[in-house]
C-alpha cells in the first residue's frame, strides 16, 4: 500500500506501524518527531498506530541551524 512520507510516495507493507517504519529505515528514535495527517503523533503511540493507505506522514529531526 502507498503512503506519503515527507512529501514523497512510498510503498509500505500492510499492517505496518509507525514504529516499524522508523526502525526499518534506521531513523534515530531519540528526539525524532512524527506528524500523521497534520497532527503530532506522540512517541508513546508509535507502536500502536497502524498506517493506512494514503496517510501523510512527516518524520522530522533536528539539524544544525542558527
Amino acid at each position, binding site marked *: 500500500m502507498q503512503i506519503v512520507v*515527507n*512529501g514523497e510516495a512510498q510503498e509500505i507493507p500492510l499492517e505496518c506501524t509507525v514504529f516499524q517504519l522508523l526502525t526499518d*529505515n*534506521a*531513523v*534515530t528514535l*531519540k*528526539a*525524532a*518527531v512524527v*506528524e500523521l495527517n497534520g497532527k*503530532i503523533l*506522540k512517541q508513546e503511540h508509535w507502536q500502536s498506530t497502524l498506517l493506512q493507505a494514503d496517510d501523510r506522514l*512527516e*518524520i*522530522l*529531526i*533536528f*539539524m*544544525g*541551524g*542558527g
Partner: protein
Amino acid sequence: MNDTIQSVNPSDDSLLIGGANLHSRLFVGTGKFSSHEIVPQVLEASGSQVVTMALRRVDWKNPQENILNYMPPNTILLPNTSGARTAEEAVRIARLAQAAGCGNWVKIEVVQDQRYLLPDNWETLRATEQLVKEGFVVLPYMSPDLGAARRLQDAGASAIMPLGAPIGSNRGLQTKELIRILIEEISLPIIVDAGIGRPSEAAEAMEMGAAAVLVNTAIATAGDPVFMAQAFRLAVTAGRMGYLAGPGERRIEAAASSPLTGFLQEG
C-alpha cells in the same frame, strides 16, 4: 535600561530569560559547520548555555544523524522556526519541536524574502502571540523596528532579537542605530541576532547595552571555528564589562591625558 546600570553587580551579572539564569551572554547557532563532530568543541570553547538548531525532514541517506547527539548536557535548546513563511507555519514547527522533547524555548523566525532573509515582523508578532498563550518562552528574530518591538513585548516575548545585518552576511552592525533605540526603549533583553561577523562587532553590541548576541556563521565559517568560538566568548565578556563600567564621554577635541603644567622647558 541605562537607569538600571548602577544597580548591576558585575560579579553577579547573570541574564534572566524564561526562568533561566544565564552566565554566558553568547548564544551559538549550530548551522553550517563542516561536520557535527566539531560542534561539542565549539560549544565548550564558546561557553554558551543557549544553542539553536533547526527542525527538518529526516535525511533517508543519513537517518542516524541528529544534532542533539552533539549537544552538551544542560544546554538550553533553542529550536528555530526557519523555513516558516507564515505565523501558522512557525506555530506548527514550534509545537513539533516541543513534542520532540526540546523544552519550551523557541526562536521565531518567519521569512518570506529569500534574497536577504529579512524577517516578517507582522507574521512574527502573530506567531509570538499564539505561542506565548501556549506557554512557550518566545524569542522572536525581527527587523529592528521600535513599534514592532513594543508589540512583541506586549505580546509576552521573553526577549527581542533584532538583526545586525542579513543572516550569514558577516557584515556586522549595519542596523546599529535602530538597535540602540531598542536597547534604550524596550525593557526586555535585546539579543543581537544575525550578521555579526567579527568578535569586535559582538563586543560593540555588548558595549551598547545588548543583553546578549547570537552568533553562528561567523564561528562556523571561520578558519578555526573552535578558536573563533573562544574569541567570541572573550569579546562578549569584554563588551559587557565595558558597558557595565560605563564608557567615558566622547569629545570632538583633544583632552590631554598628561598634566599640562610642569613641563621641562618652563622657566
